[in-house]
């Protein structure tokens, strides 16, 4: 019988503690001024709090929110009440402002710790976590780029949990290609703007969970430069506010309909019409919007938050993979089925399936994916902290460069491989995994979104190969290779099985350097980028192999099942996974043209 999700089923706290304190040395961060109010005890208390609230208020309605999809009666959106109740508890804890400045009521928690905290919520209920996820991203953007007046009006109530936020980029005809958006913003005599257009796929775009919804909307001001250089960013609230901050008039933002999704169902997903005249604030149609920063810089503002948002997506994918792994592990320990190949005596009792090597293969694969992904997203969070608070400018710059380069991988690798982990979690459950009695099928469906939104897998690949590794004369890749090389040195010095793993990693890394140079020298851009996804995946696997060597080094010389588990997963990754890069790198080295030369008519 399936059992309810408990705290121990979300993400291993032991693993989080290992990565934060035994590997990333997060315990040293309070020495920095920004984190001076913190210490190991506040970090631990924050993690305890997150784990407990996630288990008690987010996990229990995860399935219910999936079965009772949001509905729209033409006027209002209906959601199960548990979502609003969970968000109220979340807001009360102060987690919304975890990383923000004390000046706005934030706790100035390091990003790496806050990311770990948030991951518990994503593991417990990724859809309900979607609301604070978007609200935090929205508030961070406004805090960085908006006037103090906009911050006062909109960010304060968001941090109090009274308003929720959205990000409105995509349109029906413009998803990957934002330069083609058509929503326009018309400047008004009073300095405000009126927006007209349709936004598609907007998560949290409408609901009754909060007093107000703060939309951040990309739109073009007529007469501006073409393409992405002519995009501006606006705050468009669902409700316009009076001078005293109370809700005044309904803005001209109308819900055209809800999208019915494969997963992530508790997060409403909407088609919003701006300025279609459903409401007429001030007696006129047009959605009233307030410009953020300067005209035509909107996409840059949006993208300045993109690293964090993309780490968040990678973290969500990791969290779903992680909880699926832990649930399938528990199942495998409890499910008796079959006997060992050498002991087929039908009178002997059946063994738990974890006794079968093939089941352990599936568990070990999951372990190596989800723990590798957790290491990746925490490392990225640590780089965010480094980028902001490292004592010297060169270290801050280097962290920025490294994070920028790694971001497509931090977003894409967990989206691909922790989804694969969910697939294996279903497989471990046998027929039961295919039913709704167990959680793992939902985790798979929820996780299937992650390679699609926040820039598809293919778009991340173009970003990595087309922009990131070549930027600043290849400085990003150089920084990554230097970092990997340091670990290789440590692995060789540690000896034992770590030495050949280090050699193996060094060999793959050096091939990547050569191939990247060759691709960079290729005059035909189409040929170079045709296999960008293969490149993304090969570099991704190499980065995770590096992180497994790092973890094995952190576990080196330490005894016990936990550390043995780290060694086993590292071994698995080096023996079973890293060799996958061989054929991928062969394809890239050969500048394979199979896909490029396939005429659409042949398909």
């Amino acid at each position, binding site marked *: 019988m399936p059992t309810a999700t408990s*705290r121990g089923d979300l993400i291993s706290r032991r693993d989080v503690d290992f990565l934060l304190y035994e590997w990333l040395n997060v315990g040293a961060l309070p020495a920095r001024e920004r984190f001076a109010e913190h210490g190991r005890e*506040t970090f631990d*208390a924050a993690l*305890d709090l997150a784990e407990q609230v996630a288990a008690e208020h987010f996990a229990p309605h995860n399935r219910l929110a999936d079965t009772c999809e949001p509905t729209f009666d033409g006027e209002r959106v209906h959601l199960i009440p548990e979502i609003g109740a969970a968000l109220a508890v979340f807001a*009360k*804890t*102060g*987690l919304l402002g975890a990383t923000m400045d004390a000046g706005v009521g934030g706790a100035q928690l390091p990003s790496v710790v806050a990311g770990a905290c948030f991951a518990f919520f994503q593991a417990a209920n990724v859809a309900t976590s979607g609301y604070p996820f978007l609200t935090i991203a929205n508030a961070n953007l406004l805090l960085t780029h908006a006037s103090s007046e906009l911050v006062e009006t909109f960010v304060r109530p968001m941090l109090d949990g009274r308003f929720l936020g959205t990000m409105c980029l995509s349109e029906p005809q413009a998803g990957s290609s934002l330069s083609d958006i058509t929503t326009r913003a018309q400047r008004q005599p009073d300095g405000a703007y009126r927006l007209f257009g349709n936004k598609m796929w907007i998560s949290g775009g409408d609901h009754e969970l909060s007093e107000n919804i703060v939309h951040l909307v990309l739109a073009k001001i007529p007469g501006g430069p073409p393409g992405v250089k002519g995009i501006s960013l606006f705050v468009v609230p669902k409700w316009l506010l009076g001078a005293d901050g109370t809700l005044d008039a309904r803005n001209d933002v109308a819900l055209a309909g809800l999208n019915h999704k494969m997963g992530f169902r508790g997060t409403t997903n909407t088609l919003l019409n701006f300025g279609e005249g459903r409401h007429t604030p001030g007696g006129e149609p047009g959605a009233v919007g307030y410009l953020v920063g300067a005209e035509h810089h909107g996409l840059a503002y949006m993208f300045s938050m993109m690293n964090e948002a993309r780490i968040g997506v990678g973290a969500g994918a990791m969290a779903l993979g992680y909880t699926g792994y832990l649930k399938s592990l528990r199942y495998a320990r409890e499910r008796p089925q079959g006997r060992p190949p050498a002991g087929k005596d039908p009178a002997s009792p059946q063994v738990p399936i974890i006794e079968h090597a093939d089941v352990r293969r599936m568990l070990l694969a999951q372990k190596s994916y989800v723990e590798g992904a957790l290491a990746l997203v925490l490392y990225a969070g640590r780089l965010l902290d480094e980028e902001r608070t490292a004592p010297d400018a060169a270290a801050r710059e280097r962290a920025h460069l490294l994070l920028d380069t790694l971001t497509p991988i931090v977003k894409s690798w967990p989206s691909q491989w922790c989804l694969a982990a969910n697939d294996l979690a279903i497989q471990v459950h046998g027929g039961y995994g295919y039913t709704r009695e167990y959680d793992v099928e939902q985790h798979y469906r929820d996780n299937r979104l992650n390679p699609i939104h926040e820039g598809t897998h293919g778009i991340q690949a173009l970003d990595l190969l087309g922009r990131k590794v070549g930027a600043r004369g290849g400085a990003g890749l150089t920084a990554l290779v230097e970092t990997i090389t340091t670990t290789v040195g440590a692995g060789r010095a540690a000896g034992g099985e770590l030495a050949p793993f280090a050699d193996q990693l060094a060999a793959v890394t050096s091939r990547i350097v050569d191939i990247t140079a060759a691709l960079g020298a290729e005059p035909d851009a189409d040929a170079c980028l045709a296999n960008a996804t293969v490149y993304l995946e090969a570099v991704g696997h190499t980065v995770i192999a590096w992180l497994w060597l790092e973890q094995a080094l952190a576990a080196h010389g330490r005894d016990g099942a936990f550390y043995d588990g780290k060694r086993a997963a590292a071994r698995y990754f080096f023996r079973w996974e890293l060799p996958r890069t061989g054929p991928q790198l062969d394809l890239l080295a050969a500048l394979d043209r199979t896909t490029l030369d396939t005429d659409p008519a042949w398909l």
Partner: protein
Amino acid sequence: MNIVVTVKQVPDTWAEKKLDAADKTVDRKSVDNVMNEMDEYGVEEALKIKEAHGGEVTVVTMGPAKAVETIRKALSMGADKAVHLTDDSLHGSDALATSAALAKVISTLSPDLVITSSEASDARGGVIGALLAERLGLPQLTQARKVTVDPAASKVTIERQADNGYALVEASLPAVVSVVEKINQPRYPSFKGIMAAKKKPLTTLSAADAGLDAASVGLAGAATSVVTAVPAPPRSSGTIVKDEGDGGTKIAGFLAAQKLI
């Protein structure tokens, strides 16, 4: 109101609990430890009384160094200060020894009200509240599902949970009250509370600091001892009754054989 609330760190309820093979005490090292869940209700009640009547909430715990985590949780929920009694010699204290040690510490705090929860989830003795009252020479009000304090009249009234209803019990202050889960909904700590907790006063006492005689506490001073312990047998697979038209009769036969009917 000067309120003292006792808390205890216990192995997490979902963790598999084990006894230490050497001395047959609860193994606290190999598992995740958390605040005894029912103690959260005690802390919450103390905070509510303070919020209503003013005063101060002091958390008292006895436990290994790690138990400071539980103190911090109570402080981050809003308690004002804490006393942590920790000493290797206290290891293995039974309920009698524990109550003696706690009473010694609490008596120095001159409380108006002492709040405990009805039991800890590890040993489940459920007697500390009563033992403390006896040792402190204070009235005891146990199993409270509602507490009303009247500082002006210096009295406390509780609704004492009973099998089919409740009893109203009143006592003069100071008094010891033990609470049940029905009493409230404990708050979570907030980030502000977590940060503030770092700066709140925490007094750490050894057995000697507390004026305790080493021979009267810990395993040495325990009046009870665990002679032997065996793990619970794994659950057997149960009996499957196949219904071939006579299922009812078979079930009745089974129940009769178990002397259940």
